[in-house]
């Protein structure tokens, strides 16, 4: 099982890269070599680490426990990828709308579920999660519910 789990799925990396490459040339006939794909995959993984570490530091500076959307936006500025911010904000809006719909449908059920899940993970609900209070839109800690069995969440 090993380290494969800590890499991004190669098929997906290939798809993202190839889709973009096909739009880069007039003939759409640019492809990517095997070592190139590996490098893309590694690069993406390292980027995740880099961005997360930066966002984490920003989060900690604000004395919060949970990395939120704003932390990521600030991290993108700090790591000098500000050009991503605007498209990401648009994506985030859509993401929030989508989840608002879900929430409206079963908000109470979801809260209960979240509480149950936290208990299973060995945390009590009222355990100093004050950071959540002021962040209405972003209080959902990712819970992997719709993951379809991809993997467990271990904390």
């Amino acid at each position, binding site marked *: 099982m090993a380290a494969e789990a800590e890499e991004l799925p190669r098929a997906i990396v290939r798809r993202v890269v190839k889709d*973009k490459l096909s739009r880069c040339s007039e003939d759409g006939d640019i492809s990517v070599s095997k070592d190139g794909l590996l490098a893309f995959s590694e690069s993406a993984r390292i980027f995740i680490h880099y961005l997360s570490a930066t966002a984490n530091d920003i989060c900690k500076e604000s004395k919060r426990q949970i990395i939120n959307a704003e932390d990521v936006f600030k991290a993108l500025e700090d790591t000098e990828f500000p050009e*991503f911010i605007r498209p990401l904000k648009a994506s985030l809006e859509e993401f929030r709308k989508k989840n608002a719909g879900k929430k409206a449908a079963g908000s109470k059920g979801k809260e209960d579920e979240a509480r149950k899940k936290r208990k299973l993970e060995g945390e009590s609900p009222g355990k100093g999660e004050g950071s959540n209070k002021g962040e209405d839109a972003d209080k959902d800690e990712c819970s992997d519910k719709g993951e379809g069995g991809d993997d467990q969440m271990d904390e």
Partner: protein
Amino acid sequence: MAEEEENAASTVSEFPKGRVKKIMTLDKDVKRVSSEALFLVSRSTELFLQFLAEKSAQVAIEKKRKTVNLEHIRVAVKRHQPTRDFLLDDLPPPSQPNKPDKHTTPAARPKSDKPLPGTRRIDQFFRKPEPENPAQAEAQAQSPIPVDES
């Protein structure tokens, strides 16, 4: 422009959430992340991949090649300061025995002391030695590493 809008407003990321989170939390300092933040990290990574792919394709085209390879990616990384800052050292070295990169590296990285807020050097995350070539990288990727959680 239409396809950019399509990309920008994507509500799903290609990458599986669990996998992205797992990679993030390999860093023991990173423990908890909101679903929005996880979504944004995933999407950012896609955008980054697209960005890198585009830059690499430009290099390949310059060299009159139809296939983007490691060298094209390396050149693309070198040309873009923010990417070079965190990525250049971690790409597999070129296949030639001499490493011209080493000479240019000190001069090309005046920002090595740049005070990003508490950002750690990325090589802290990586325990495994630099592979000589992609084949080795593959073999090494399959050997168990300490943080393995089965």
